[in-house]
């Protein structure tokens, strides 16, 4: 009866922890748009085009990481061009070397190769769910926002690739749009492990007590003798 009680307490603690976690986490959506800058940085390792700086004066607040995002960019003749975000006003390669800019995981490709298109990644926000950002990149991008209260965005392709990003089209500005879904929850392995520690401890303690109680009981042989 006592062992069952211990196990029940252990399970109850796990359930309570798991139940408590979502109520702590909060979600938020931040979005911004701007005219594309279109400055080009060509090196032997990449061809990067600066889109511009968004989320000026947006604070980190209680949030911990960027969970998912949408991007809408104006671009031509692109195939699997990577979108990077972080702090890189001084140049893409310098920022990447200093670990200040991070791959969001989004890849931009144009539908046709003979038009300047507005590309929605991963799709129309009204119809498609936002694309998840890898957890380390999501944490790093949010840290960068919290630290600098702004984010720089770059489109990065292979060296010598021919994609173009306009700043203007005719007399109109060519714009880009970014939407981040951010959260306070950090379901990284460490956190999950931490959640399991008290529960595992309780289970182990219960098991130990059970063994101890078994050892304390007289055996059948003892009783016969």
């Amino acid at each position, binding site marked *: 009866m006592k062992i069952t009680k211990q196990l029940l307490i252990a399970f109850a603690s796990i359930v309570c922890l798991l139940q408590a976690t979502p109520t702590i986490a909060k979600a938020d959506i931040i979005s911004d748009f701007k005219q594309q*800058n*279109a400055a080009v940085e060509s090196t032997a390792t990449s061809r990067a085009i600066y889109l511009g700086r968004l989320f000026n004066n947006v604070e980190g607040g209680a949030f911990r990481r960027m969970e998912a995002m949408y991007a809408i960019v*104006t671009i031509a003749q692109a195939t699997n061009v990577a979108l990077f975000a972080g702090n890189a006003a001084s140049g893409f390669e310098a920022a990447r070397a200093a670990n200040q800019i991070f791959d969001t995981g989004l890849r931009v490709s144009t539908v046709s190769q*003979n038009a*300047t*298109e*507005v590309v929605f990644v991963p799709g129309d926000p009204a119809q498609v769910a936002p694309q998840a950002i890898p957890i380390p990149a999501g944490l790093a991008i949010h840290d960068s926002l919290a630290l600098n209260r702004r984010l720089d965005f770059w489109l990065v392709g292979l060296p010598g690739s021919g994609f173009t990003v306009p700043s203007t089209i*005719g007399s109109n500005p060519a714009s880009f749009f970014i939407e981040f879904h951010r959260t306070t929850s950090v379901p990284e392995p460490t956190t999950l492990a931490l959640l399991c520690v008290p529960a595992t401890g309780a289970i182990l303690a219960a098991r130990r007590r059970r063994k101890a109680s078994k050892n304390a009981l007289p055996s059948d042989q003892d009783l016969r003798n």
Partner: protein
Amino acid sequence: MLSQVLKTTGFALIAFAMLLTHANAGFIFSSTTNQVGTKIDFNKTPQNPAGSGSASKIGLYDFRNDADAYAYLKARIRLWVQLPPEAVGDKAPYIVIAKAGTLDLDLALTVGDAVRLDLRVSYDLFPSGPGVVEKQTDFENITEDQSLAIAAIMEQDPERRIEAWLASEDFKDITVPASFDSLQIVNGRPQIVTTTLNSTLDLEAVPEPASIACFLIAPITIYSLNRRRQRLAKSI
């Protein structure tokens, strides 16, 4: 006798004036077409099969049915393009006139199905900027060889259509878009508007030398033969 001399001189003057009028005024053939925007590798070599540059098909232009019977003196073009800031001077991309349906511009230039013009579209040609802009060049002279090549390319097409390409040996990041989308934010949500783009090619031309010769020589010859016949009739 004096009247004959005056008549001959007068006729020659009229013919010469006609010739000068044609030579000076010329015709401007103009064709406007939707941009195509297909981009291919250009300046390919066995060592570099991807090519050092790119060529973008601007469009397929329609001219008059007798357009192959003219000598071309000058050309200019209006087009929508995005160029890198380095595309100036000798590095500015240039116009290539090619046969309709060209797929490989390197090959077309080699076999004579395309001809390179001295007409360049430079980044610093107004309006310049890091975006898709509408540029129009000034009229640029066409050499005699280029003119003959253009006429020969026209002759290959029953409707006298020719393609214009924007070619660069140095840059791949050149875009001649067929259309562009513009993003507008309405009530905080993005909306797209698509615009189709077109281009105009102007060719200034005069009737080719053979036609000019016909203008001048044929009437004089007819007149001379007539005079000779009259003289023979008188002598009889």
